[in-house]
């Protein structure tokens, strides 16, 4: 991390100051346009409308009512907290499940075989989330393949209720986001020189110690960037909670959806959207702070 920071420092100090570089500014214009027109402006519009309500005369006036509504209604902020907690949990699960896979693909099997398995891993992306979600419905339903199999071999007498629960929702969320953890973790693991592992074992480290003190710290930048992507995908996902989670699973995106499209209260919807944005940014900021990573390193 500090290696990169130092590089940045030297880059900055060696950059000639006050030199007006026309080409550079010309090149920056498209980027700025893109940022402003497509990202900043719509969000600003949303931000403004989140602070507005319609008064009795049908005019829009400034108010905090939209945000107050959120805190007044228990179900809203319960959903909010649950969404955050589940998103963190799913991210952690995604790491636990995919890390051994990434390690296996980069360090155990040959490059050629690894390429084939990576292609297999990508299949869910080819067919899209909606199709995979329906796929899970077929698998997890009361008359689905898993229950059918469990009953056939006599483990259970009645179908287990898996679909439309938190369990099925988590499966769906994991399935659509896991890949985004594998890829960055694999790329850091690929750059891990095998002789580091050998050096550690030469110095008396057991397998577990090597994992804990060498492999994990080394792949931390990849893990953190993978975790950020997975977390953002999960916290903002709508399909898996809505279809696989059913009525009982509350997800904050569903609340936002309802505001916009069921109750047509766009102002409150905008406020909820902003709360979600702040929530995910806040959690990512905390995670970066505690893992000791810097955004510039994670991004590279």
């Amino acid at each position: 991390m500090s290696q990169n920071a130092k590089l940045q420092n030297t880059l900055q100090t060696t950059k000639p100051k006050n030199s007006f570089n026309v080409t550079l500014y010309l090149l920056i214009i498209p980027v700025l346009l893109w940022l402003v027109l497509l990202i900043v402006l719509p969000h600003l519009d949303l931000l403004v409308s989140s602070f507005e309500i319609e008064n009795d005369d049908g005019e829009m006036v400034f108010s905090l009512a939209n945000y107050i509504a959120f805190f007044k209604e228990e179900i809203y902020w319960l959903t909010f907290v649950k969404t955050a907690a589940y998103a963190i949990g799913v991210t952690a699960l995604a790491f636990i499940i995919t890390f051994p896979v990434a390690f296996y693909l980069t360090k155990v099997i040959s490059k050629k075989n690894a390429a084939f398995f990576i292609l297999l891993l990508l299949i869910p992306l080819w067919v899209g989330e909606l199709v995979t979600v329906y796929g899970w419905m077929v698998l997890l339903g009361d008359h689905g393949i898993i229950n059918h199999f469990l009953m056939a071999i006599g483990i259970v007498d009645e179908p287990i209720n898996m679909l439309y629960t938190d369990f099925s929702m988590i499966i769906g969320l994991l399935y659509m986001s896991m890949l985004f953890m594998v890829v960055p973790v694999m790329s850091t693991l690929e750059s891990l020189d095998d002789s580091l592992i050998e050096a550690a074992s030469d110095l008396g480290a057991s397998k577990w110690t090597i994992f804990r003190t060498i492999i994990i710290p080394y792949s931390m930048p990849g893990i953190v960037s993978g975790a950020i992507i997975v977390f953002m995908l999960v916290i903002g996902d709508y399909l898996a909670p809505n279809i696989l989670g059913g009525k009982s699973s509350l997800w904050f995106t569903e609340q936002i959806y309802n505001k916009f499209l069921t109750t047509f209260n766009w102002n409150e919807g905008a406020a909820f959207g902003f709360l979600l944005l702040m929530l995910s940014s806040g959690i990512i900021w905390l995670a970066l702070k505690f893992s000791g990573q810097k955004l510039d390193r994670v991004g590279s």
Partner: protein
Amino acid sequence: MSNILEIKNLTKKFGDFTAVEDVNFSVKDGGFFSILGSSGCGKSTLLRIIAGFEPETEGEVIIRGESMKGVPPEKRPVNIVFQHLALFPMMNVRENVAFGLKRLKLSNTEIDSRVNEMLSRVGLEGYEKKDVTALSGGQKQRVAIARSLVMKPSILLLDEPLGALDRKLREHMKVELKLLQREIGTTFIYITHDQSEALVMSDEIAVMHEGRFEQIDTPRNLYKNPKTAFVAGFVGDSNRFELSRTEGDTLITNKGWSINKKSSMAEPKVLYIRPEALIINPSEGLTDVETFGITIKTILFDGSNTKLATTVTGTTEELLISLPQNAEFDGLSEGQTLQVGVHINDLKCY
């Protein structure tokens, strides 16, 4: 002194390819043993077998009288300095050096004192908090050596540790490493393809070629009395001549040069003569010295390593002769002819 390491009939095969073939040697406690060989001859493989990273195909590694068969790397009383150092990039200098000690579950005060002692020994006091990625090549080198030495291994294995350094620094580290080894008395097994490193530092050198040991000897003997043609050609500079036949005591080269030599060998094939074994203008009355005429083609000036490129008069055989840089030979010029002599013991036939 007893033998700290014994290698018996060690062979390593990768599939059909034999990387190490029937190697035998032993190293005395406190010795500096070098393995010298060209790239790809199996040096690293041999070292990795001793360290326990590669299982041997056949044979045995014995350390302090105990067979190492089936003993994993972390349980062997040896430590290795890797060819590319393998410092832990996410740790600072202190954490790198302390890594092995922490695994021994020593108290923090003991770890601190041993790390500090080792860092001052390799001249890195004050660098404890530095990132290893921010160090210079020579400093990284020292961290790698300190990280292994702090474990107080019975044997320290070094795999071309100076390979990545520039020439000046390498010359410097060479001397430093030798002094360090003398001071702490740990047995070093040192791998290199640089003969000067091996000759300067070692008590004993093994010359390795295509997985086999050609000769194990002291540096002086290796240089003076190479046992095989490969060693004669590999260690030090040599003029090499293909022999076509012998007539009694006379050796005749492919290009028609004949020189007298009482050879004990029945049918020698090649003749080696070191450039510095040739005496320019030998005085009369030297015994057992063969003299002949040469013509100077050009002078290859290289400071203390300056040589004359010559042809043996009357033949097309080319001969390099060391030219001492004292006033005596300042007047030599191209095209000049000279008498040179060589002691018959310096004519090496194989």
